[in-house]
């Protein structure tokens, strides 16, 4: 295992690259944490602007409307998807709630009963869903002999508003969600930069023509050598990625239970793997240290920017996003930004990242063959 050992040794001798990126990263995270706390505070004080369209007009639906009116400011709206989206985009409304004709039956059958359009840029907009869910939960409890005890519901909600809603979990949850999105998006950026720079620089040592000649005339089998090299890469990459995951837990502690933490972890691991494959490709294209360092900076900053790490994807133009789709960061960011109910919801974006991993590997193999032909 000499090759493996010295792979890691040389990586550690390049620790200044790691230290630099990790420092930048954690400074950014600490700054952002303060920011997230501020956002939470401002959120507690503000009411949302919402539009409501009631196609049912039952006792139950009127009761829900009354409740929402108490908690929010109401704006006029029209039942037209494009119109609603524009209202939200222009920030006229933070959310629009559409109550269907068969609202009562759906509630009784405990099906998805209302349609909510909301502004995903604003973490507060999640509050509207919380309010609706709370109302429906109470309504269902009081349902008996074909009737809802709507008075009891209203009372229960009034109390719970005072006791529950303002200070606790769900509200905080959205600020926390923003923190996690930022943290993991930014981890993606640092992962690209670190993997390419550190693994690339170490590999350029091992692939130096003179040094590689010594390996080639030695009795070390090529397969065995590669096995140790790739084990070294995997160890190094895992150490970096696991550090970021653990650091997120240390930062947020029990808050990880308020978000879909597994989503972030799975996404980061898949993304890291695809970047490891990209590193493999780059190492088969060049062993020039300057080129590698340059690629590390350009690819990490460039793709992070166009994929929505620095600014939200919504703000980027369609053309930019169209370009971003040719790199796994786009799909990685999409998963971080999404609100999901189960891991299967991110299947497509995970699949795309894996597809890129395979493509990078294949291209890398093609280039490595070319290298052999030259010799």
């Amino acid at each position, binding site marked *: 295992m000499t090759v493996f050992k010295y792979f890691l040794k040389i990586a550690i001798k390049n620790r200044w690259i790691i230290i630099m990126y990790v420092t930048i990263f954690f400074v950014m995270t600490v700054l952002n944490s303060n920011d997230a706390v501020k956002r939470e505070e401002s959120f507690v004080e503000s009411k949302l602007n919402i539009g409501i369209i009631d196609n049912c007009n039952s006792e139950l639906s009127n009761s829900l409307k009354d409740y929402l009116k108490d908690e929010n400011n109401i704006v006029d709206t029209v039942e037209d998807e494009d119109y609603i989206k524009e209202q939200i985009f222009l920030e006229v409304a933070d959310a629009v709630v559409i109550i269907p004709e068969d609202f009562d039956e759906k509630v009784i059958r405990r099906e998805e009963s209302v349609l909510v359009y909301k502004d995903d840029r604003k973490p507060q907009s999640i509050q509207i869903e919380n309010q609706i869910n709370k109302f429906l939960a109470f309504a269902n409890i009081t349902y008996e002999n074909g009737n809802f005890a709507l008075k009891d519901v209203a009372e229960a909600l009034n109390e719970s508003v005072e006791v529950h809603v303002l200070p606790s979990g769900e509200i905080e949850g959205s600020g926390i969600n923003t923190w996690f999105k930022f943290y993991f998006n930014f981890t993606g950026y640092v992962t690209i930069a670190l993997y390419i720079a550190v693994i690339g620089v170490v590999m350029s040592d091992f692939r130096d023509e003179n040094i590689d000649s010594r390996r*080639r005339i030695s*009795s070390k089998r090529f397969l065995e050598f590669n096995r140790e090299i790739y084990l070294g890469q995997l160890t190094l990459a895992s150490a970096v990625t696991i550090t970021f995951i653990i650091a997120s837990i240390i930062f947020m502690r029990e808050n990880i239970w308020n978000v879909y933490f597994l989503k972030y972890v799975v996404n980061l691991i898949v993304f890291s793997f695809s970047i490891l494959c990209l590193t493999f490709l780059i190492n088969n294209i060049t062993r020039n240290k300057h080129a590698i360092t340059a690629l590390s900076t350009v690819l990490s900053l460039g793709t992070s920017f166009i994929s929505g790490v620095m600014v939200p994807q919504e703000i980027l133009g369609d053309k930019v996003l169209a370009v971003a789709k040719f790199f796994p960061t786009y799909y990685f960011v999409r998963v971080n930004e999404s609100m999901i109910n189960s891991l299967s919801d991110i299947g497509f974006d995970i699949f795309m990242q894996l597809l890129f991993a395979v493509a990078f590997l294949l291209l890398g193999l093609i280039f490595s063959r070319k290298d052999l032909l030259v010799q």
Partner: protein
Amino acid sequence: MRMIVKVKNVVKRYSEKIALDHFNMEVYEGEILGLLGPNGCGKTTAINCILSLLSFDKGEIEVFGKKMTPNSYDIKRQIGLVPQEVSVFENLTVRENIDYFCGLYVDDKNVRKRYVDEAIEFVDLKDYVKFYPKKLSGGLKRRLNIACGIVHKPKLIFMDEPTVAVDAQSRNFILEGIKRLNGESSTVVYTTHYLEEAEMLCSRIVIMDNGKDIVSGTTEELKAMITTSEKIVVSFVSIEDSVASLMKGIPHVIDIERNGEDFIIKFENGINNLSNLLSFITEHNLTYTKLYSKLPTLNDVFLELTGKELRD
């Protein structure tokens, strides 16, 4: 003596340039073979072909009696290379470098530690084990380069111009080291374009030029092959051109060269060359300021066989 390397009619082309042109060479167990030739004649290419670092277009190469291929791991285990360029990790210390390259051959930790210690001892880098290569002088770097190539105790060692750009002290140290290795029963193939080194170190010499092996044999055998057997250098207080031209008439003289005041007179094999010249001097009443005789060198051999000087 057992033949352990056999190179037969090897042709190697780099696109247009023919680097090896039906090259032949044999190495026998226990010898120090000098591969001698001017810059760019194909020495490094020959070694790289023998070691399967380079593919070649035609010919055969056998090492330890078997065909050499990139997958001949059991043969490679017994071979060491000290490449022409210092080939070490800039990011590893002297000791780490030697340990890494040893690890490509030796898995056992304890054996490796012993080998590394011995290699450090051998090249006398004990005081520098924690140094990084960029902190080493040129001569010390060369020693590190050697240590990395011989640490696994190979039976057959290729050394590609290990003394180029090395100060006299380190150079002697390296040459002594090669003799010690050979004494420890390693066979050494040593490439150089320094004639004196080859002459003093090698038990047998292959002279090559333009990718071809010109001739091979011991120094004595090579010198016996050429007609010039002695050179006498003489310079006079004054001499008339007409008298100078008469010197050609002295028995066994092949050629006379004039180099400023010095006349370099080449003789073919004969017993009385010096006394014949002295008689000529008395006969013509000449006064000489210096006069000495030189035996032919490998340079003369090279000159006579290729028509070119082999000089640094």
